[in-house]
């Protein structure tokens, strides 16, 4: 799971892990809070196509990773679960590389 460096304080509370962190970001920016880890952001209308851009920028900055154009894919980005797997893979890749 996420290392301590990715922990974030929101309203004075320590956010436990990356998933909560992204959930917070989505809820703060798109005003939705009742969605599951598997829900497609785009298909369920949680985020629109412009919102996706904000999410990509947020993830790049918060998790110190760079997302290539070829990685802009639903299986990487379009649900909390997909994002989780993607970020872990990216971070592992960075540590080993």
């Amino acid at each position, binding site marked *: 799971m996420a290392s301590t460096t990715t922990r974030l304080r929101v309203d004075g509370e320590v956010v436990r892990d990356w998933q909560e962190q992204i959930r917070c970001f989505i809820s*703060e*920016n*798109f*005003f*939705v809070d009742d969605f599951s880890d598997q829900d*497609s952001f*785009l*298909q369920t*209308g949680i985020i*629109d*196509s*412009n*919102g*996706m*851009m*904000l*999410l*990509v920028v947020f993830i790049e900055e918060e998790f110190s990773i760079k997302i290539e*154009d*070829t990685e*802009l*894919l*639903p*299986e990487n*980005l*379009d649900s909390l679960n997909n994002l989780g797997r993607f970020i872990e893979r990216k971070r592992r890749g960075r540590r080993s590389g």
Partner: protein
Amino acid sequence: MCGIAGFTFPRGLPGTARERCYSDRLRRMTASLYHRGPDAQRACLRDGIALGSTRLSIVDLAGGEQPMTDPATGVTVVFNGEIFNHVELRERFREHRFRTHCDTEIILAAFLADGIDCVNEFIGQFAFALWDPRDRALWLARDRVGVRPLFYAQTTQGLAFASEIKAIFAAGWLAPVFDTEAIQQTIHLWSPVTPRTTFAGVSTLPPGSVGRFDGRTLTIRRYWDLDLSVVDEQVSEKAAVEAISDLLIDAVRLRLRADVPVAAYLSGGLDSSLICALAQAQLGGTLQTFSVSFKQRRYDEGAFQKKVAAALKTAHHSLQVDDTSIGASLPEVVEHAEQVLLRSAPVPFLHLSRLVHEHGTKVVLTGEGADEIFLGYDLYKETKVRQFWARQPDSAFRPRLLTRLYPYLPLSSQSTPMLRQFYGIGLDSPGTPEFSHQIRWMNSGRITRFFADGFLEQVNGHDPSQALIASLPPRVLSWRPLARAQYIEMQSLLTGYLLSAQGDRMLMGNSVEGRFPFLDHRLIEQAARLPDRFKLKGLVEKHLLKRLASRWVPPAVIERTKFPYRAPISEALTGPSAPTTIQRLFDRAAVDRVGVFDAGKVGRLVSKLASSSSLPSEADNMALMAVASTQLLAEAFLEQRPVAADRVEAVEMLVA
């Protein structure tokens, strides 16, 4: 001739009692429509009927007083709008002994000759109420696409009607209460589903309809509807251009008929430029044009407006709108519009009609309607691409066409798989009636996440898009996808929003009458019979109209990319220039009091928009506008204000 109101009541009361019971109500209703007709406010009480009119004199300035009665039968009419072919109809009904030169009298003559089917003869934009004492029936009628508004409500005494909802409330029988489902519908679909309105108990007479109230029941019948099912595949494109050209020139000719000067709105786009060119040619060089420009360049079309005005040699007037003036006039705009707004685009139109009014002009031509009739909107292209894509859902190429349509899509959404996630909604069922509007409705539907829990409980289970689909005539459902999209667009966006909240109300707010050549029903019917490929050629919108316009307007206007008309929202409502009257709308207590939106989420939205340095998203802008306009509607209507006493006093009661 521009505001009407009235009501039925039980017959048989002696004159004095009638006067005592109903006169004040009628005066208040009439006075509340003063802005629609500042030239005269007159009303009359007869046995069982009250009729009021506020008049903007345009045809037969000296004659044409309303309510107008046929002396032989007692048939009496109040009328808002224009019958443009009144000159020709006068000839057709020459057996009638005309006393005026006004088109109001044409309605009487035509009704006496043909009954209510006379509406089929009218080329025009009209809403009228006609009392026939012979069978004690009240007739209500509205033009084919709903350029002119007409509302009605059942009262304890009978039926009340008016050009605007505020007049119905002014009568005092009905307490203003939000229709919660209609509010939710407006937020999804841009307008309530006909015949509903923002307020419970108040309905709109559907466009192209007549209604007869017999004292108990209002029976409504459609006399005209858009038919897109029959396409003439044999016609050549050249012949089609000529046919449309002839009709459009004639539509402009009829709409220049007035006893006062007729000016025109000029947006700088194709449609209004073409109308201005045709009008200028017919007027021989005396056309005045009016435009609105914006301080922020991303909204502004000023350069094109100047270019067209110079090319057409019109006397051009323009007005610059900034954030402060948008915020400051929003309360007035919402009071006129009488519905929830998702865009601030109506606001500049109220400023523009003020400019027209200040120049002493009462009538303007506008280019509204061309996008609906000649397939100008991106929505039609989106429908075409999505239908094409649905035939080969796995195609990598087909969804890429969307990036041609929306070149500003962020890179993160441009890969085929990402496009599939967002624009692929409903791709497995392209035959459903909502297919064309699914993306738009999902975008606007995002606003519902700001609803308060209590409000969500009230609208529990209501599905606005299904309500709209259920309201469509069944035959529409079997039409081809583009035709279905066009029908839905004309009903929900054109009639329900563009012609009303952004059209009639913003014009009449400053006593200016708009005239819409593209909405001449002969032109609509002709265009409806043309193949789609003449209108949307590949992904080029309004192809046929562009060919026609190339004869009249500078090439730069025809070649330019379609520029969506928008106005600032969050900059005007949350920035430092936002007036305190707007800022306090978003206060927790104010939002809680109205109960439609969640005060916590509204607070977060406002602070996000106020603190963000980047451009606000479309979704956030629409949500903010929905909240502001809902709060303003509550202020203007739910806490009812009395009609100004001097205006009530000024209404002239005609002696029967």
